[in-house]
């Protein structure tokens, strides 16, 4: 059955992921997460994810790919990917808060508000100058500088995001080299090669990183396709893991 419900807008990676899972009326577990992994990547590329949020999307994308790979290779474990919160648990609690926020929204709109006590003190005659004992020129100069210092990171946020993307770019070049070293190994081969487990993990992680990289650098072009060509020219068409990169 084809689902026609469109995901129109999402506020963050967990929002998108939850919408995908809920649209297909799936329970939150590893199997459902693996199932929507590809769509997650597609939506993420099709929408305009702000630069400063890209890293958060990449993190979730890499976790999804990892979950999918684990279903295919039950004994495949990577310590780095095991770090941090478990995506499944994270999404479940996120869902809990999203549900609670719907109740809150309904309550917000009823207009059944409370009011504080009305103030009458704004009458002119009640205003009298009270010297502020702790206000002096030094304190004020210092405070003004602090206010400006607090604003600067906010102004610079877009620039910082670009900087981060650039540093990821450099890391990608590095990864590319590693991947090339493994390029001779077919995608399928390294997945199946139990005797060269370490190679497999290295390649796989490199792949993941590359995928992450590609997201960051652009929406332009078909990155994943690119990976296919570089890594696995002879990967079987139906290889389920390879599909997640298409």
């Amino acid at each position, binding site marked *: 059955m084809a689902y026609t419900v469109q995901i129109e807008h999402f506020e963050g990676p967990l929002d998108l992921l939850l919408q995908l899972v809920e649209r297909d009326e799936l329970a939150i577990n590893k199997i459902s997460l693996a199932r929507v992994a590809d769509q997650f990547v597609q939506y993420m590329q099709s929408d305009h994810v702000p630069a400063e949020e890209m890293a958060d999307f990449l993190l979730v994308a890499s976790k999804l790919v990892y979950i999918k790979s684990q279903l295919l290779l039950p004994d495949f474990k990577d310590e780095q990917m095991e770090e941090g919160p478990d995506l499944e648990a994270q999404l479940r609690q996120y869902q809990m808060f999203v549900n609670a926020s719907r109740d809150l929204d309904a309550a917000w709109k009823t207009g059944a508000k409370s*009011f504080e006590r*009305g103030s009458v*003190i704004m009458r002119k005659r009640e*205003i009298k*100058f*009270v010297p*502020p004992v702790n206000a002096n020129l030094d*304190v004020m100069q210092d*405070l003004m500088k602090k206010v400006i210092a607090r604003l600067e990171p906010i102004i610079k946020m877009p620039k910082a995001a670009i900087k981060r993307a650039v540093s990821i770019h450099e890391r990608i070049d590095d990864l590319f080299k590693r991947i090339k070293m493994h390029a001779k190994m077919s995608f399928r081969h390294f997945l199946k090669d139990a005797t060269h487990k370490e190679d497999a993990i290295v390649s796989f992680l490199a792949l993941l990183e590359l995928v992450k990289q590609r997201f960051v650098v652009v929406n332009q072009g078909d990155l994943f396709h690119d990976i296919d060509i570089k890594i696995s020219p002879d990967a079987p068409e139906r290889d389920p893991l390879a599909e997640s990169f298409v």
Partner: protein
Amino acid sequence: MNLDQILEAILFASGRPLGLRKLSEITEASTEEVESALEELSQRLEASSGIMLQEYGHNFELVTKPNAAEAVKKVVKDDEQGELTRASLEALTILAYRGPMTRPELEQVRGIQSTMILRNLMIRGLVEQKDDERLGQPTYAVTFDFLKHLGLSSVKDLPDYEVLRGHAAISDMLEQLNPTSEAKADLPAADSLNV
């Protein structure tokens, strides 16, 4: 909710005396019903509350009971005097360096809602509303009394005035508030001090 409770809420929130007719209008009850509910309210408060219903002519107001006057004086005095909180001091400083500015502008620079703080600064006579508006909003600036307290004759004598007033971080931030070029033209003259 009973009428006496609704009347209590109305008088509490309005903070000023309200007439019988007005109360009847708001509650859509007859003046007789309002009068009897006010009597009920008065008795309930008399019996157990720290506040009471005061009547002058046909005007009604909630006030604190005289027995609590001593404690009440302490809190009111506290509001009016004593040191400024850090937040108040910060708002006052921004208004000194960058004023006159509107409340949304002040909030954009502070990153914090500033209604109460602005009100408190005005009660203390440190800040006043100016005659000119910007984008339909009143503007605020520090008072002459405050400058005198600092020993200054003009805000321009504040330390590093030109640099801090015209700092790009603040201009950029305020520009996000007024994206149109029209709004830009409305910015205070000292913007030309931008470096």
